[in-house]
């Protein structure tokens, strides 16, 4: 709308340059117009970097995975029960890594979803304005704590505590990694879910109070159902984060691919496997090198799926009122 005021007809500059007697002022205008177009083009290139990055990610993952799938059949990849690409007797079944990823994520969500939801309901419906103004920035602050620090917490703080309660727990286990990952995701879920609940119009709460409902009844039976798609979107984004989380699991869950859904055992996740291989010096274009891209492709597909799902759910909730 604004640009309309500034727009010059397309043939304008050409017409002016053709005529030989151009007043200096007009010539300056042409120059300005030309400069404007260049600037716009450069800015557009910058914006395109996002598209380029996406394409580069997909292209690299597909290209290297294609090399991998020349040696390994897709059927074996998804059905074999062992993942030992670096051994003499190599097996290429991604399932142990997927099982590890899902188990740690499930433990994380079992911690983060109840606590995050209750915290969100409390913040949105019970807390005073002042308390909210203090807690919200702290939550935002906590989202920025580096994940490697949580890895330390899982390995050297939570695991020893759990071992006291349950002595046969191994030093590397998915339980402590999952619990810590859950603690890490709480602020994230609480913050997004609270935003969704705050978006519920005040008149709905007032209607509920007018009927004689208490705060708790209003929160549980009116506000939460009204904000449910926003809350679910927060959960889905939390899942996506848990699935892609790397350092906590690389440090605390162990790095042995293990086809199990028992959180008290150690196992490797997709991300932990990628870290493990990247630490060792694998020759470029070897099958081991390609295997991390194949694993990465699976991870990318999983998180992309969750992100799109979250997007759809959130869009639905936006249209509700």
């Amino acid at each position, binding site marked *: 709308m604004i640009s309309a005021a500034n727009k010059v007809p397309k043939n304008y500059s050409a017409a002016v340059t053709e005529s030989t007697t151009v007043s200096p002022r007009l010539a300056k205008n042409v120059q300005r117009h030309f400069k404007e177009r260049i600037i716009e083009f450069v800015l557009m290139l910058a914006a395109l970097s996002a598209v380029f990055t996406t394409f580069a990610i997909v292209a690299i993952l597909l290209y290297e995975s294609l090399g991998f799938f020349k040696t390994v059949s897709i059927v074996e990849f998804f059905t074999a029960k062992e993942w030992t690409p670096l051994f003499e007797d190599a097996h290429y079944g991604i399932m142990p890594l997927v099982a590890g990823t899902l188990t740690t994520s499930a433990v994380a969500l079992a911690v983060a979803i109840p606590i995050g939801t209750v915290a969100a309901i*409390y913040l949105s419906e019970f*807390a005073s304005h002042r308390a909210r103004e203090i807690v919200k920035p702290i939550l935002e602050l906590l989202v920025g704590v580096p994940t490697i620090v949580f890895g330390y917490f899982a390995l050297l703080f939570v695991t020893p505590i759990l071992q006291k309660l349950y002595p046969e727990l191994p030093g590397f286990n998915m339980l402590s990694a999952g619990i810590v990952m859950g603690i890490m995701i709480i602020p994230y879920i609480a913050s997004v879910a609270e935003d969704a609940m705050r978006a519920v119009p005040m008149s709905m709460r007032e209607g509920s109070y007018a009927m004689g409902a208490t705060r708790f009844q209003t929160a549980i039976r009116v506000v939460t159902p009204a904000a449910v798609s926003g809350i679910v979107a927060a959960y889905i984004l939390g899942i996506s984060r848990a699935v892609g989380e790397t350092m906590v699991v690389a440090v605390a869950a162990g790095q042995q691919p293990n086809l199990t859904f028992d959180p008290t055992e150690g196992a490797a996740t997709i991300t932990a496997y990628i870290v493990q291989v990247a630490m060792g010096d694998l020759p470029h274009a070897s099958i081991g090198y390609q295997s991390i891209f194949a694993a*990465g492709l699976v991870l990318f597909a999983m998180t992309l799926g969750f992100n799109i799902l979250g997007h759809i759910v959130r869009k639905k909730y936006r249209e509700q009122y």
Partner: protein
Amino acid sequence: MNSNTPKIKASVIENLGAVRAMIKRHKRNDILFATIGLVAIMFGLLALLTLFVDLVMDGYPRFNLQFFSDFPSRRAGSAGLLSAWVGSLLVMLVTFLTAVPVGVAAGLYLEEYAPKNWFSDLIEINVSNLAGVPSIIYGLLALGLFVYGLNLGQSILTAGLTLGLLILPIVIVSTREAIRSIPVAIREAAYAVGATKWQVVKDHVVKYSQGGILTGVIIGMSRALGETAPIITIGALTFIAFLPPSPVTTEVPFINFEWLSSSFTVLPIQMFNWLSRPDHAFHINAAATGAIIIIVTLLMNGTAIWLRYKIRKNIKW
């Protein structure tokens, strides 16, 4: 309903005691839930406070200047952070120089220039999707593209570019949010006195959104500082007992770019390395490093949140 009302009224009077008990129960539920909510929030906050106190207490013996001026070593007691913090600093410099110009430019384009069509939709969708891609995937991208595709090697340049791409969505989104709050009247006034589009953007839009953009940049940089996975994936070394060549020299032209292609390590990787050793003495070093990373990132995030709060309060269009 209507025919029932007198009946209910009658039953309320008859069962006054029961109704009172019900009200009491509901009020108790209120208090109960408020307590549970408070506990839930406290649990989250306390867990993180515990983490921080635990780190500081474990790492306490290593908080001295020598820890910052020593190279890593085989002996935990004399191992230091020198190569790690210098590496972090240089990587952050490259990240800043790539992410900020590109991110701000992209934000400006999307908000001020882009026509509303499928093309800008495509860019929008891409930006929001990139924000949800796990960081380790960026590491794989960098490994395939920068390290082996463009032959940049496992260098500071590669790491800086990788983290630059990683925080690009954060910078773009915060630039757009900052721009969106500037009223159209400001732009119209500038156009009215004959400014070109770029003059409006450069002298007014960018100028008034500086604070908001800075907020996003600080949050992005603090994320980049704590990010470990993508840098491990490009194959950063974990034991570095030398410094990259200095970016500033004593001879003309006073700067060199050799440091860009140097090997390096960064703080989170140094911490990861110490953490994965079985020897407990190294865990103390890891704790000290973790405490330092947390303090720096929390300070950065705190500054950003404070800045945003200040801007929100001060703006009177």
